[in-house]
């Protein structure tokens, strides 16, 4: 499948890659490192038109959403957005989503590869509710402008609108470069920015307008950083989200992972105030100690951890806190988990990763090893996130 900006990518030197059936730019000629750093220092523009989005409306829309997802959306005011999960009956994650409450409808942004599954799942659970579920993917295009200069860039294209004044996790309609768009102050990079839902027929013009919109050079830094947005591919999108430890569906969670182990309860779940699919399973899981936990780790010996690599107890030593009754199950060199995401982090200069490990190895400071091409490389469990943007006001 192709996004509505596909031709533009090919004409502008993008290297394309298959991502869940979508032919997507993985990088442009600038390369993933420079794209990543530009987002941290100024701004980057991402084609995220592959992501699913549906509009939910009707008299029972709120009651329906309370039933199918984990956040208590009765407490979400119009114009506000929140992260949430769709769970199955056993508490496994069907998808992670963003919900935007508009004046008379709701917008759900869902993962690209999960979109057909999610839409079928939502429709199946809509029986008995007076609700309309509309797939917006044909008529709209979705892009993300992310970075500390994003507000300034978009404001330059929206004279008369207070775009820069929008708070975090809001949704509002504005006129940008002459087109009516829905702006969402959400993103997947850890930087301030916007996700822009625009009319499909205007998308290439708006994409180019954002790239051309000049912002004043930064006076704060010694060397002037270009304050224009750079087009960015999926490689930079992945390293940006990984540095701030935002989970990726299929890596940090799937239908066999529950939000307790993934550490997503606070960010995405309200057990009180509504009953939802998977709630009973979650409440039961919450009573038992966790067997495995998602952690962040830093390589103390150089090496690139990658999705699927084995995490082992440190070679030659017992893990701190491992009980004497372990009977060798978590002894030196034994498998204790799997890497879900790994990378060389451009912002910190470190080799970092996330993964699930047995609970007794999950404390910050625990020594572990990552098995890279049959050799044990030393790593240490560290605090998450790995990086925090200084650009939040």
């Amino acid at each position, binding site marked *: 499948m192709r996004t509505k900006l596909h031709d533009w990518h090919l004409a502008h030197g993008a290297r394309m890659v298959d991502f869940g059936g979508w032919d997507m730019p993985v990088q442009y000629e600038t390369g993933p490192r420079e794209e990543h750093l530009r987002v941290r220092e100024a701004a980057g523009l991402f084609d995220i038109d592959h992501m699913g989005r549906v509009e939910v409306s009707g008299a029972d829309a709120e009651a329906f959403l309370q039933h199918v997802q984990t956040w208590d959306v009765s407490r979400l005011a119009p114009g506000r957005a929140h992260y949430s999960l769709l769970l199955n009956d056993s508490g496994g994650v069907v998808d992670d989503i963003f919900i935007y409450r508009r004046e008379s409808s709701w917008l759900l942004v869902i993962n690209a590869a999960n979109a057909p599954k999610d839409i079928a799942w939502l429709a199946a659970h809509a029986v008995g509710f007076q609700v309309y579920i509309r797939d917006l993917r044909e008529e709209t295009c979705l892009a993300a402008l992310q970075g500390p200069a994003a507000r300034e860039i978009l404001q330059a294209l929206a004279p008369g609108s207070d775009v820069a004044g929008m708070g975090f996790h809001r949704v509002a309609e504005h006129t940008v470069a002459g087109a009516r768009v829905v702006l969402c102050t959400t993103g997947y990079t850890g930087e301030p920015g916007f996700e822009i839902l625009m009319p499909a027929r205007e998308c290439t013009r708006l994409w180019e307008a954002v790239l051309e919109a000049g912002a004043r050079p930064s006076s704060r830094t010694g060397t002037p950083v270009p304050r224009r947005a750079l087009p960015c591919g999926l490689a930079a999108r992945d390293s940006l989200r990984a540095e701030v430890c935002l989970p990726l569906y299929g890596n940090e969670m799937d239908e066999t992972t529950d939000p307790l182990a993934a550490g997503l309860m606070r960010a995405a779940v309200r057990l009180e105030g509504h009953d939802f699919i998977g709630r009973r399973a979650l409440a039961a899981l919450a009573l038992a100690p966790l067997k495995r936990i998602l952690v962040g780790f830093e390589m103390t010996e150089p090496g*690139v951890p990658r999705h699927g690599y084995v995490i082992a107890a440190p070679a030659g030593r017992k893990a701190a806190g491992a009980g004497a009754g372990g009977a060798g199950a978590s002894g030196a060199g034994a498998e204790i988990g799997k890497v879900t995401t790994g990378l*060389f982090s451009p912002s910190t200069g470190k080799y970092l990763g996330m993964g699930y490990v047995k609970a007794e190895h999950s404390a910050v400071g625990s020594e572990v090893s990552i098995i890279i091409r049959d050799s044990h490389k030393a790593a240490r469990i560290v605090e998450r996130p790995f990086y925090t943007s200084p650009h939040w006001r």
Partner: protein
Amino acid sequence: MDSKVDQGVRYSKTHEWVRVEGGEAVIGISDYAQNKLCDIVFVELTAVGREMKVGAACMVIESVKAAEEVFAPVTGTVTARNEALVKTPELVNSDPFGKGWLVRVKLASPSEVNALMDAAAYTSFIATL
């Protein structure tokens, strides 16, 4: 993107280059190869004293996207390795024929070098890819 082809080295079909200096040879990867890989984030070099056999996987170069094997373009014993790549693997991107060299080997059979492509042949070769 146009790739540079160093005129003074010989090339393998798997994009390694060899520069003969006396009985030794310096080994690296071509500009074409580093372009294809893009941002290199880690290089796993063969240890000094280890033997490498022509055609066998002997080192690993990791880009943002993937880990790629480097195949020995000649047979020989490693006498030195480019330790600068431990801290700055991106030298392979910025200067593949110079500061981005990988290892130096003592050639076991110098005639193997003649089987490799010269710059003109390699230029034609990458034009077909």
